[in-house]
């Protein structure tokens, strides 16, 4: 009998403790405790922008992955818009770098309407132009992605079309399927009117220009020469004897400030990628994304690995 009160008290104390513990253990924290972002590198990241089509997205991935493997901190902004938009963002300082086509740069940004005959001269001209604005045009790529006009082979045969000038023979309005900016560009309706005297043209904005051509919604499509659809015989590219469409070599534009901050290693890393980009390689990668619907990042990584750039 003597030990009972002490045992009872002990039991009750344990019980009370259990109650209190159970009551206090009620709030389970569901906030994520880990962050998947590594510690920030010193200095702000290099902001790379790309324009709003597949090839540019692939290019953005190529440069990003190559630079990151070299230890640079990169922020990639894809799908920003057309040259008019992206170049302004670069000039405003919202971007540090973006890959641009030399011809487009001259015609749409530098407003140079009479382009030199040689690509190298065009490149020098563009480079000088950018230098004045505080930007450096890095080495241009082996591939050229120019603007061009394409038609269906049957249509070409029926109207005996070989060059852009032959379009004048068509009766009525010629419908061109193109991206929206084509309507107001020199390498677009403006140039076609000015250089080839084509006045009865109508630009129909179309996201899928090849499909529009296939279904007959448009007569002519504005195309880019690295697009994989042009690899076979499904479409005929019209010749450009008056060289309205300038050479489509691509060169990354980088702000001088960024180059100064990161030193020559940055330029070397970018140039190493650009040097490997042949027309064949570019068309292959475009095909993988556009036709086989593979993710641009994977395609870019495989290319870099194949070329020992990762």
């Amino acid at each position, binding site marked *: 009998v003597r030990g009972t009160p002490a045992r009872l008290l002990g039991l009750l104390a344990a*019980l*009370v403790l259990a109650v209190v513990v159970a009551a206090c253990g009620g709030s389970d924290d569901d*906030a994520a405790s880990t962050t998947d972002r590594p510690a920030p590198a010193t200095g702000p990241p290099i902001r790379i922008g790309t324009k709003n089509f597949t090839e540019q997205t692939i290019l953005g991935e190529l440069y990003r992955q190559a630079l990151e493997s070299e230890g640079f901190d990169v922020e990639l902004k894809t799908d920003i*818009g057309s040259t008019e938009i992206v170049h302004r963002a670069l000039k405003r300082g919202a971007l540090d770098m973006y890959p641009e086509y030399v011809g487009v740069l001259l015609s749409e940004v530098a407003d140079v309407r009479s382009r030199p005959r040689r690509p190298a001269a065009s490149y020098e001209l563009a480079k000088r132009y950018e230098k004045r604005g505080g930007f450096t045009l890095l080495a241009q790529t082996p591939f050229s992605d120019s603007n061009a006009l394409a038609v269906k082979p049957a249509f070409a045969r029926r109207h005996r079309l070989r060059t852009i000038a032959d379009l004048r023979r068509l009766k009525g309005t010629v419908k061109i399927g193109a991206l929206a900016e084509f309507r*107001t560009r020199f390498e677009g309706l403006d140039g076609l009117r000015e250089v080839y005297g084509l006045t009865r043209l109508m630009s129909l904005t179309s996201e899928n220009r090849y499909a529009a051509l296939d279904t007959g919604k448009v007569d002519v499509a504005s195309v880019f020469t690295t697009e994989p659809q042009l690899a076979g015989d499904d479409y005929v590219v019209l010749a450009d004897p008056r060289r309205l469409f300038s050479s489509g070599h691509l060169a990354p534009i980088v702000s001088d400030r960024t180059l100064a901050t990161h030193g020559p290693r940055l330029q070397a890393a970018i140039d190493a990628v650009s040097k490997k980009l042949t027309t064949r390689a570019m068309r292959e990668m475009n095909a993988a994304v556009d036709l086989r619907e593979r993710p641009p990042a994977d395609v870019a990584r495989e290319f870099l690995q194949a070329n020992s750039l990762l």
Partner: protein
Amino acid sequence: VHLVLHRSIRTQITTKVVALSAASAILLGAALVTLIVAVTGQRDAARVAFRSQQALSLANQLEKSLLSIESGLNRYVTTRESRYLGTVTRELADYPAATRRLVRLVSDDAGQQRRMEALSDAIRDYDDFWVKSLIEIVSEDGFEVARSQVETNGGRARLDRVRAQFESLFNRERAVIRARERAAERGSARAIGLGIGGLALVIAIALGFTLYLRRSVLRPVRTVAEATGRLAAGDLSTRVPTEREDELGELARGFNSMADSLERGREQLEVSNAELTRSNAELEQFASVTSHDLQAPLTTISMYAELLERRRGDPGPDDIDLVDGIRGATQQARALIRDLLEYSRAGRGHLDVEEVPAGHVVDQALEALAGAIEESGAQVTVGDLPVVRADSANLCRVFQNLIGNAVKFTGEDTPHVSIDAERDDGHWRFSVRDNGIGMKPDHARRIFEPFQRLHGEEDYPGTGIGLAICERIIDQLGGRIWVSSCPGEGSVFSFTLPAASPAGAESPRVRASA
């Protein structure tokens, strides 16, 4: 060792009571803490929910503001009306502050902070890449170029990214709200359960404690109480069981030893009482027999003195003096014996108690004393006297004694005697007041003892037995007698008698006698 053992025995019930009270208090405290935790949890959940609602509403506003920037921009480019640009500019000026507020609101969730950063980036990109560029294009290249840019849907695409971020933020915030609400509900349900459980436990402890008290404390206490009742009723042989080792065992043992000592005391009392009664009876018998037996020789002495006087034809004066001396002494001895006999009878025998008008009794006494009163020239005043329960012959003797004393022990003034009565609870208090010689307060008690006299026989005659007889009579009638007096200021003799009213009136105590 005995002290330690004693203390450990003493603390058994106390320990249980303290332990159970402490346990109950702790349990109640725990239940309270649990409820507080639950309420706090609910309040926190409500606060978080409110914050989340604020965040959601602010995010909605921000999204609307971005949509109105986009549509304003499109209208501006399409219609070329600058008022649309004004709208866009206003909204552009406002959104950074709204974004900062939103960042602060979601700052308590790491995941949401990340999403908010992504959202801020997306908004900034939309502004930097699209809105600013488009406005520049309008001013540098004209509306036509800007319109072709709008048609690329670049702005819409960029805004869609922003809206996707918004959607992600909203979904997560709603999930956070739901999760917190669920957690709070679970917490409060658990707390209520624990609180009820705790209270039930406390009630169970209280019930158990009550049962324990009934069985182990109250029952033994009741046993002792009942035993005490029996003891009080006179059953001194009552004992209680003492097998317990705690405080109650101690109580029981204490009770038993008290009963033992009471029983022993009563036995002794009975023995000495019987002895006392016996010796008292013997004494009274002796007094009665003695006084009666002394009467005969005294009568013989007084007869012989008379014969002696008669036989001498002409006795000389000396002879007559001698004979008178014998006769006087004999008379005095007879008076003494008579008084002694009266005193020994006064406490005994049958009382004829009835309702007696005290006024009549006093009148009889005054009649008997008429000679003495007249001789002393005293003035006697009798107040309104009540009806009392008494034996009228004995009461008359008391009044006769007291009034007789009052007219006997007179000073130089004309004697005044007044007789009154006052009601005092269930009694009447009678007083006989005089203006005589009085006495010292020290003597107030002595004068009620038999044959006690304050004065010499030659000053005031009498045997000194009267007041002793009065006390015996009043005592037998159930009253009390006393005197208050000072020398030269007179005396007040007072006595009490039970009132004649039937309710509450006790019948006079009859002294037990052999």
